[in-house]
């Protein structure tokens, strides 16, 4: 892992009130910066999975993981090796459409990027696009030329490739 690159941390946490607060609080208090965070239920009852991306060197990453591990409601935490994971992010983007020519141009782009048009109005198109953050960045760069009216990105979620997992044994 190189220094100063974005790193991905996956954590299995108790799914109860206050857990997100205690994690976010620890990051703030120790001066670590969260780039993105996604949280959702897991297939195991009472547990949620967090995917956190951070920017920092290896030493910082090690401290973050150790400090997260100390939190009682964090059941398991691990950094994911960037070359060995599948990451996805979802973006919804609302684009300005002044005329029919532009509309078909945009729809062509969406097809190339394997996105979907999820809402249409006389002046706008709303597009759903999923992929790695790089792919989404590339698509958004294209859309900038048409005028992005509104954008919502989820931040990445990630899993290790192959049989490796951070699942909790029950």
């Amino acid at each position, binding site marked *: 892992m190189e220094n100063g690159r974005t790193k991905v941390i996956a954590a299995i946490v*108790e799914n109860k009130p*206050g857990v997100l*607060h205690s994690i976010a609080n620890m990051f703030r208090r120790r001066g670590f910066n969260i780039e993105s965070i996604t949280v959702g239920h897991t297939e195991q009852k009472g547990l949620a999975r967090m995917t956190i991306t951070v920017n920092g060197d290896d030493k910082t990453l090690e401290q973050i993981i150790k400090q997260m*591990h100390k939190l*009682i*409601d*964090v*059941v398991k935490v691990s950094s994911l090796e960037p070359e060995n994971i599948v990451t996805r992010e979802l973006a919804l983007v609302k684009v300005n459409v002044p005329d029919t020519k532009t509309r078909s141009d945009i729809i062509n782009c969406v097809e190339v990027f394997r996105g979907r048009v999820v809402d249409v109005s006389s002046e706008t198109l709303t597009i759903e696009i999923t992929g790695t953050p790089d792919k989404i960045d590339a698509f958004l760069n294209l859309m900038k030329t048409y005028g992005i009216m509104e954008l919502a990105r989820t931040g990445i979620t990630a899993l290790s490739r192959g049989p490796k997992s951070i699942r*909790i044994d029950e």
Partner: protein
Amino acid sequence: MTKMSGAKALLESLERQNVDVIFGILGGATLPIYDLLCNSKIRHILCRHEQGAAHAADGYARASGKAGVCMATSGPGATNLVTGITNAYMDSSPVIALTGQVPTTGANTSYMIGRDAFQEADIIGITTPITKHNFQLREAAEIPKIVKTAFYIATTGRPGPVLIDVPKNVQTEVAQIEFSDGIEIRGYKPTSNPHPLQIRKAAEMLAEAEKPVILAGGGVITSNASQELLQLAELLMAPVATTFMGKGSLPEIHPLSLGSIGMHGNPVANKLLCEADVLLAVGTRFSDRSTGNLDSFCAPAKKIHIDIDAAEIGKNVDVNIPIVADAKKALKALHARLAKQLKKQKKSAWMKRVKEAKKQLNPPSKGKSKDLKPKALLQELRKLLPENAIVTTEVGQNQMWAALYFNALKPRTFISSGGLGTMGFGFPAAIGAKVACPHRPVVDIAGDGSFRMTEQELGTSVTEDIPVIVIVLNNSVLGMVAQWQRMFFKGRYTAVKLGSVPDFVKLAEAYGAQGLRVGSVAEFSKAVKKALKSNVTTVIDVPISSEEDVVPMVPPGCGLNQQVGEY
């Protein structure tokens, strides 16, 4: 299963944890608990401010090794605990804080949590960064499990404070309560056994060391590992320096003891640490006040770091061999390994150097000064107290003089606010320590500035019959900051002069305590003897010069080898 109220379940759960005392102040949101407390086996000590209650619980915990318990009502009661909880967190002290809370629900929904009810404070949010963990109870049935879990978390691994917030309706709710034995916390499995491979590597490094130094931190005291520390030190013939928090882990009069390191450490400890070729650090987090400038900290030494908290390893100081383990178990394992390996004790050159450094840097005091000097007073105090006496300190110059000149001879007999540096800690902590060890003398080495911050606990100590001794090194200024203004701000004194009020003798008498004032070391000695015989709290006012500095000192930003001033 038995039917009972939440308040009853709470008290019974505490009794099952062998809680014998709670320090606290009641209020509207804890009335149902207090209503049952009078019939409980648990002694309640009514403090005069919640900060005092939290420090007393902390002092109790440090003196006894058991969890200390404090309790406050919702809102301001709870927020008044905050300094005490933070103090316990910084010094890894097992304190259980119980707080009342406004109801979660009720007939009148305007009293629900989150609606800014009267005396509502978000104490869970407030204490998240200053507790090892906290809980807000939602129903009475979960009380036994949560209390048990709270005590388990507070007292195991690296200890720390745990807060339980108890909404009023949970206290009054009647439910079927079951006291179960087992608890399961899937996110908390503290490591305690050292990894054998790491022990082997560390033993090899220590066996080859020519100039080993052991640095013992507060973790040695927490894990009751003094015996193991001594055995390993004697086997290796390695001198032992302590951190401020580790003071007392080895008797400071032992030939292998170097005293404590740090900004106001013993020059012998600071000097020899810089000369070591292998440093074995045990149960320390390498705080900035201990290490001085990190770039020059123990630069030539290879470092072994034993700590039960993995996050402390590599946080401040990079180490060669990390060992995540309980101090006692790791020291024992190292000793077992090395006992086989080391045939005979060597390193006589290093021991010669230790002796020489002590002779040079800790010279015996020259003659007797007529003025009341902290050094002479504290050395005299040591002679007057039995070795199992407990000493607490306030924070500031008094504390650093005590670190330098008062030899701690046993673990858990030197209790001070190391991490947070909380003025006002010493006196209530002394009360807590006295409750834990009623048959041993307890002395608070105080400064006048610090003592003023919690002096109202004189009321607690007198009415609850907890006699302690407070020695006020009274310079009528906030001495430590005055010293820094003298040293680093060209002597421009700003906001440090306290004046000579109150009269501490009269203050003590106003509370029904004994007040004594002394003008010489001989009088001091007489006063301490009188206080030791007294069954009421004694305040000894010792006027000292307001210009007195704490030296030697490592100036801020400098390395331990750049200490200035004579011991």
